[in-house]
Every structure is written in structure tokens, then in C-alpha cells.
């Protein structure tokens, strides 16, 4: 029990700090974004599991030889008023911390979900009044805005892709097709679920380096995945041109926001581009364009298999450490 808790604690610290920093600096994710995405998800899951597991195992050490036995005795104390004298202060502290952290993570996940759903509903209601369906069908709407803007609003069967008048005017048909394929790939591959989970993860533990790095990496990787889908059916040149036109035409910072009468927002964000999400997405656009301009071959099969094996181990080892002793004992 003792060594298990130390091992889990070391794993939790490694996954919270050095591992995500190394991964965020690596160059290979742009070559195999899907594999990198799996690794980021594994790091988040295994990190959370070992963090909570380490505290649980440490706290239960005096009352059981393994996690399951410990939980059984703990249930006895909580529900049947069995004596708690075996637990010292630090054990109770660790158990409370584990319970609080679990509750905090679940609660933040649900709260973020609720907030996102509410914002999406409001957005959809306004779109229904302001935007008109495009010639492509009800899944695509056109909104009367001059700057070139394209985005998708997920919502199951009511998912829509929104294009602005400015975008329709600025792009040739094949470039527009590339934009639509890119946005549809986000919807098809359920990227909003990943964005939700990692946004909640960051919201819950904002001071942990891994949560910020993983959210930035995931936002950037989904764009690469969607680009790859768009490349399957359209030309590379059309996609690059579409990205460049939208990026240079939507003066991300000052222009568009001033035009919409929000000086306070642009003051804050253009004042310190390094500190806000804007910088992250600027890096995203740059890395997207450079990987489209000079395509690199995907990682060799063996390297991808090694990453996948690492993912499996990262999840399996803490799970096994937590559960197997109890099943054997």
C-alpha cells in the first residue's frame, strides 16, 4: 500500500508537470495529430486517476491491505459508526482531499457542460432570427457580417455551420467547400466533446501546467485533424488560400472588435497578446499553415505503435495498482 501510493504520487506529478511540457514542445504531434490527441487524453485521465488514487491509497493504508478492503472499512466507519481511531490526521486529510478533488472535478465538468449548453442555445436562438439558410441546405447558415467568419455550433441533430456574407464574397467555390469540409469534420468527429472536457479540466485546476498546455494542444490538434479531412476531398491550395484569406481578412485583434463596438475587449486582449487565448490560436494558425505548406510524413508505424502502447500502459498501470491487489487478496 505504501509503495503504491508513492508510485502513484510520482506518476501524478510527472503527468502534471514535466510530461505535458515536453509533449507541448515536441514537433511530432503535427505529423500524427490523432496519435498525439490520444496521448493528451491519456495524460489527463491517468493524471487525474493517479492523483486521486495516491491520496486514497495513502489515507486508507492503516485500515486495509488493499484499496477495496480499505474502502470497505471506510464505508463501515462512515455508515456504521465503526471506530476511526486507526486513521491519523494525515490519513483523514488525504481522504478528504481525495473526496473533495473528485467532487470538484465532477462538479466543474457538469457546470461547464451546463454553461456551454446554455450559451449554445442562446446562440442558436439568435441565429434562427438573424441568419438565413444557405443554398447548401439547413445545416449551413449565412449571417450578414462583412468580415470573413466561419464556425460551427455543435448540437446533435441541430448542429449548424455558419458562414458570413463577407466570407462568401471573399472565397472561390472550392475554397468555400474546403471551409465547409473543415467545419463538418469538427462536427463529425465530435471535437466539441474534447474541447468541453479539456476546458473543464483547465477550469477545475487552472494552476496546474498540464491543464493549460493540454487545452492549447487539443485546440490546435483538432484544427489539424479537420484540415486533414478537408484535404481528402479538396485541394491543398484551396485550403491554404481559404485559411490565409480568412486569417488576414478577420483582423482578429483591433479591426473586427472595434467595428462591433467593444473597445474594452480589444484593449485587454491586444494589449497583452502573450497572455490570452488569442496567442494560443495565433500559434495554431501559424503551425497549421506551415504544416500545410511543407507537409511532413506521418510518424512511422513503429513510433505510433510505441505511443499507443505508452497510452495503454499509462492507463493500465495505475488502474491495476489500485484494483488488482484487492481482487487477489
Amino acid at each position, binding site marked *: 500500500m505504501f509503495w503504491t501510493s508513492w508510485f502513484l504520487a510520482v506518476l501524478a506529478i510527472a503527468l502534471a508537470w514535466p510530461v505535458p511540457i515536453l509533449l507541448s514542445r515536441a514537433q511530432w504531434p503535427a505529423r500524427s495529430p490523432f496519435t498525439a490527441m490520444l496521448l493528451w487524453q491519456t495524460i489527463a485521465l491517468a493524471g487525474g486517476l493517479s492523483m486521486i488514487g495516491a491520496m486514497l491509497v495513502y489515507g486508507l493504508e492503516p485500515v486495509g491491505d488493499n484499496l477495496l478492503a480499505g474502502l470497505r472499512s471506510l464505508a463501515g466507519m462512515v455508515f456504521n459508526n465503526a471506530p476511526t481511531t486507526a486513521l491519523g490526521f494525515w490519513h483523514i486529510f488525504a481522504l478528504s482531499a481525495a473526496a473533495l478533488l473528485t467532487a470538484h472535478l465532477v462538479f466543474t465538468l457538469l457546470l461547464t457542460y451546463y454553461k456551454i449548453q446554455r450559451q449554445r442555445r442562446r446562440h442558436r436562438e439568435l441565429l*434562427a432570427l438573424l441568419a438565413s439558410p444557405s443554398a447548401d441546405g439547413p445545416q449551413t447558415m449565412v449571417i450578414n457580417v462583412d468580415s470573413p467568419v466561419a464556425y460551427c455550433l455543435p448540437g446533435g441533430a441541430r448542429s449548424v455551420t455558419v458562414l458570413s456574407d463577407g466570407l462568401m464574397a471573399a472565397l472561390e467555390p472550392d475554397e468555400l467547400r474546403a471551409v465547409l469540409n473543415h467545419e463538418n469534420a469538427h462536427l463529425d468527429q465530435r471535437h466539441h466533446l474534447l474541447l468541453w472536457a479539456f476546458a473543464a479540466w483547465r477550469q477545475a485546476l487552472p494552476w496546474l501546467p498540464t491543464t493549460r498546455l493540454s487545452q492549447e494542444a487539443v485546440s490546435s490538434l483538432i484544427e489539424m485533424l479537420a484540415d486533414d479531412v478537408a484535404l481528402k476531398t479538396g485541394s491543398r491550395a484551396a485550403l491554404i488560400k481559404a485559411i490565409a484569406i480568412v486569417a488576414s481578412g478577420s483582423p482578429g485583434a483591433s479591426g473586427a472588435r472595434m467595428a462591433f463596438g467593444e473597445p474594452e475587449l480589444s484593449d485587454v486582449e491586444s494589449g497583452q*497578446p502573450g497572455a490570452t*487565448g488569442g496567442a*494560443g490560436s495565433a500559434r*495554431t494558425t501559424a503551425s497549421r499553415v506551415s504544416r500545410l505548406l511543407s507537409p511532413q510524413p506521418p510518424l512511422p508505424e513503429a513510433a505510433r505503435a510505441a505511443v499507443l502502447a505508452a497510452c495503454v500502459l499509462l492507463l493500465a498501470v495505475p488502474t491495476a495498482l489500485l484494483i488488482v491487489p484487492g481482487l487477489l487478496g
Partner: protein
Amino acid sequence: MASLGELERAVMDLLWAGHEAATANTLRDLLAQNTRAENGAAGHEGKDLAVTTVLTVLSRLERKGLVERERGTRPHRYQAVSSREDHTAELMHEVLGSAPDREAVLARFIGSVTDTEAETLRKLLGLN
């Protein structure tokens, strides 16, 4: 008969165009006029639109925070809470903003770009 969604849209268009508060009766008449104009002289469907339907639509819009009514007068007069442009700006604020939890609400084709980066891209393409 138009769906509630279409009617909401038609009512908001009238309120946004009119700039003034209007009663359900006025709105019903305007909607009927528009329908007649669309269907030509032969159409009578506009008359089928009941004031209660318009009131239903208005109360749905009120619940969504899009219209408000002046409570002092009878019959109630309704007006749009904000202009069409303000609502569009609200949407674009949500789209162009870059707070981390906003990224999860919708997925943009391109995130915010710095001015220098936009310049590089323009040059790259020989735009300008």
C-alpha cells in the same frame, strides 16, 4: 400556416424595422399584409393568423429575452429589446472572443490572428 419559428422571425423583422412599440393586433395586421403581398391578390391565408397566435409568439420571444412589453398600456405594446445589429454584434463577440471556455461553445475556422501574422499570410498569397 407558417411554423412558430418562422413567425418568430417575421415578428422580430417587423419589430426591428418599425423602431416603435406595436400591439399584437398591429403586428397581426402587418403579418397578414406581408403574406398577402407574397401570395398575390388571391391569397387569404393571412387572415387565418389569429391574434392569440401572435401573442404566443410574442411571449416565446419575451421568454427568450428578445422583446419586452410596456406594461402600463392596454393592450400591451411590444418592442425589441435590442436592435438587429446589437444582436449580431453579440453573436460575433461570442465567435471572435478568445476566453478558454468559449472555445468549447463553437469551433471557428480560424482563431484570432496577430496583425503581423495576417500580414505574412497576405504577402505569402500575393494578396493586397
